[in-house]
């Protein structure tokens, strides 16, 4: 029973997996509220999204600093784009996000190009976007967790009669994720006189114990995107180990110097 033996990095993997699953689980009540709203009102209007406010604000705790529902284009009866998104202001008071939703406006930025929107739409699955600069909302270095919402119009019978209606999501700041995870990562690196990092499926460093492998940089020594598509749980090389953090699209990378 190989599995019962503990391996270095188990704690990091368990912690990251716990954070990720916790955030996705936290989105479930909001997802349910959106589905109910869409089912209840034949033609949902932008104003009706206000009914999601309690479930959205409920999410703003712990690492989560922003949350809400983003509608697919033309889901709403009265406007092309729309969302209900709240962020925790530094004061701790939730603040509603307003950005231009008018495609003709000077300030309009098309959110349907953002990965947190396109990936759940195109794969039907949950996604973590980032780390990335969230210039639509807080301008901060962010991880965005999104789940697809079904129940929209544009019903495709092949997709089980449920059209893509948008995404529900939660934001965390990379620096807060670092505060939460760096301690265990550092302990791991000290034990093995190595450097340890958490990377995303694109090989982008989220947190690292080494300034030479800084947050935001891409790991080039390994083709992490290619490895990711193999579905393997881990990769071991003489000087490098790579391990998935459970079902999260985040891996632990340990390199000996």
């Amino acid at each position: 029973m190989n599995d019962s033996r503990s391996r270095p990095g188990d704690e990091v993997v368990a912690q990251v997996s716990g954070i990720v699953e916790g955030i996705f689980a936290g989105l479930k009540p909001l997802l349910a509220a959106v589905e109910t709203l869409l089912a209840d009102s034949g033609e949902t209007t932008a104003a009706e999204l206000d009914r999601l406010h309690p479930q959205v604000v409920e999410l703003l705790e712990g690492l989560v600093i922003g949350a809400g529902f983003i509608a697919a284009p033309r889901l709403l009866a009265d406007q092309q784009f729309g969302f209900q998104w709240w962020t925790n202001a530094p004061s701790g008071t939730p603040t509603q996000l307003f950005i231009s939703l008018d495609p003709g406006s000077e300030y309009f930025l098309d959110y349907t190009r953002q990965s947190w929107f396109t990936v759940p739409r195109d794969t039907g699955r949950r996604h973590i976007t980032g780390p990335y600069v969230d210039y639509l909302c807080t301008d901060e270095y962010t991880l965005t967790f999104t789940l697809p919402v079904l129940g929209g119009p544009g019903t495709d019978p092949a997709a089980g009669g449920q059209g893509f209606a948008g995404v529900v999501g939660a934001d965390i700041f990379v620096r807060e994720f670092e505060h939460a995870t760096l301690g265990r990562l550092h302990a791991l690196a000290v034990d093995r006189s190595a450097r340890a990092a958490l990377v995303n499926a694109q090989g982008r460093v989220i947190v690292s114990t080494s300034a030479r492998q800084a947050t935001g940089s891409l790991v080039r020594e390994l083709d992490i995107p290619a490895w990711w598509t193999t579905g393997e749980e881990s990769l071991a090389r003489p000087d490098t180990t790579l391990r998935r953090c459970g079902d999260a699209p985040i891996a632990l990378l340990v390199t000996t110097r």
Partner: protein
Amino acid sequence: MVKRMSRGARAALFAPLDQTGRVEAVTRRLVDAVTLGLLADAEQLPSESELAAQLGVSTVTVREALVALRQLGLVETRRGRGGGSFVRAPADSPAAPWRERLRAVSLTDLRDVGDHYTAVAGSAARLAAERSSAEDLARLELAAEDIRTATGPAASRAERHFHLEVAAAAQSPRLTHQELQLQGEQGGLLWLPIGHPEDPEVAHTVHRAIVTAIASRDGELARKLTEEHILDAIDRLAAVHLELLGP
């Protein structure tokens, strides 16, 4: 001197709204009024309760809309005697009188803004070449295509959006923030389609070349192309400035 808007425009601005999406509707109407110059810079808005009465919404709705406008930097609230909410005309409003602003600008300041902007956007391009993932590249390519068919305000939006995407691809919140700030410098003149080479194909070709340099991880080339692109824009502004001054 504060210019007042016409009676007709003011009446339309303060006409009652439906009850749907009120905060957003109020916000949008006020944003449009400020960005289109219907409300002059430094003009004082009516009080929250007056606005609420005129628009037919609650004061809470007006208050939330004003929060949004403050976040956009379009309204400033001062407390105390003589306090209230005051319009802050946006730097890069398309309908703002750019001719006046461009005539008033000094070439010395223009050069200085150009230096700062090339430093920020050039570094962002270099870092983007180091740090862009396949996903970033896909978004950069989309943004580069936007300018091909764009004219007028859409062209200036496409320019600004392209450089914003490059800064975001650099993975730097600070450079992204500076990029946004610099886009608004000198009244947002830089990316206005003023004295632009008639052909959007030219800008499109440059944007494509920058994306290609980033995709091939050639940071120095990406930086050089970006710097030249910005200097070209500054040159165009300087030329129009001199034209406006006349012989």
